[in-house]
């Protein structure tokens, strides 16, 4: 048996073409039994070598086995009444593959030729009148770039562990008690909304509300319903009694 460097083969079709050439097999009359046997020997070798391409080779091996079994059965007939050769499809695939393999050699030739060419290397020093302002638009950005960027963002976003950060509150209850009482210096009654309107942070409103409850508990303010159901009225108390 020839020893073949398996990693030289791009895949099962490539290996089959090699057998066909080496053994001068007529591609129309592939001895499926023999070739299957040989193919399996190599598949076993690939498995031992643990090559990453093994899966594709095994898939082909099972195709060959399938053809082999069909060869033993009576031939199927196509619509023209002619016998269908179970190997026909494989032959077609082999030829088609060979066709593109040839073209990859053409490409390889173009690659070698182009590698002998060197483009101009340094463009930055060309005298240019500076473009007035830097504008941004699209160039050399593909759909793939777009999708890749999005995928990376998603990955970054999902990687972020939920962090429960304890932020120092920007306001204290004491401060807000002072704030509320300062408002009551010129009024005896105020709507709650009127003192929280304009507050940017939610936390400030919450703290103000707590400060208000504190003031009620201390007996310095009283609460009653407002005509607006979303609001209520605060009124000043003097040691628990209305001013």
């Amino acid at each position, binding site marked *: 048996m020839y020893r073949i460097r398996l990693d030289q083969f791009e895949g099962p079709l490539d290996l089959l073409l090699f057998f066909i050439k080496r053994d001068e097999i007529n591609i129309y009359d592939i001895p499926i039994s023999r070739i299957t046997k040989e193919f399996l020997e190599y598949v076993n070798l690939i498995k031992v070598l643990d090559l*990453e391409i093994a899966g594709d080779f095994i*898939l082909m*091996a099972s195709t060959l086995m399938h053809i082999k079994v069909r060869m033993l059965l009576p031939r199927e007939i196509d619509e023209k009444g002619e016998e269908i050769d179970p190997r026909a499809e494989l032959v077609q695939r082999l030829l088609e593959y060979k066709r593109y393999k040839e073209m990859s050699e053409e490409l390889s030739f173009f690659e070698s030729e182009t590698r002998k060419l060197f483009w*101009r290397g340094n463009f930055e020093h060309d005298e240019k009148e500076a473009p007035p302002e830097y*504008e941004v638009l699209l160039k050399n950005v593909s759909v793939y770039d777009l999708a890749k960027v999005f995928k990376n963002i998603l990955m970054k*976003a999902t990687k972020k562990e939920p962090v429960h950060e304890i932020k120092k509150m920007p306001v204290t209850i004491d401060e807000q008690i002072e704030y509320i009482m300062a408002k009551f210096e010129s009024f005896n009654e105020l709507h709650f909304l009127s003192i929280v309107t304009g507050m940017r942070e939610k936390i400030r409103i919450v703290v103000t509300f707590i400060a208000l409850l504190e003031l009620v508990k201390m007996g310095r303010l009283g609460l009653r319903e407002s005509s607006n159901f979303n609001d209520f009225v605060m009124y000043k108390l003097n040691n628990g009694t209305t001013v």
Partner: protein
Amino acid sequence: MEQLYNSVIEALIFASDEPLKPAEIIRAIHGIDGEDVEITPGDIDAAVELLNERYSLESHAFTIMRVAEGYLYSTRQQFAKYLGFLSSEKSKRRLSQAALETLAIVAYKQPITKPEVESLRGVNSDYTINTLLEKNLIAIAGRSETIGRPILYSTTEEFLRYFGLNKISDLPKPREIEEIMQDEDFLEQKRKLLMNAVEENLEKSMESSGEDAGTTE
């Protein structure tokens, strides 16, 4: 120094992506033609001088400059305005990474609000959103029904045209990108699994179809 090396020096400076030092030129020539080729930095400077005289005589649009103790090509000053026009045209078409990120998020999550974009990117995105709006790659698509009714953004026809897509659903799904971005390790594992599965079937069919196929090991 041999005549041939005038052209070699010309080619080397032409293709260098940074100012090419005389020592580098000598190194390349010695590397290819052997250490005994006689060539000095003075020879190289003379060759560059000669080349520049010829460019000037033949009225070509470029010249070799001496920069940072090396040589590099530059086009002549008098063409600067044309080059400036072209390069501004080109720079117009470059999208910054930030803009690309924002565009990707809008494309995939549209319609989407600025706060949502910002929470995905983790940075303020006012500037990039404005840029993309100006370039007509995204557009305002109404308002969200959530608190504060923030503005919703989506991509435009112009966006589709640029990327050669018929509709937004033509964008590759993150799953599809995942599939082609898999690293080799992962593929290998996948193949191993496939291998085991096929192997079993294979052995079975070998047993049943008999003959000599089983005697391969």
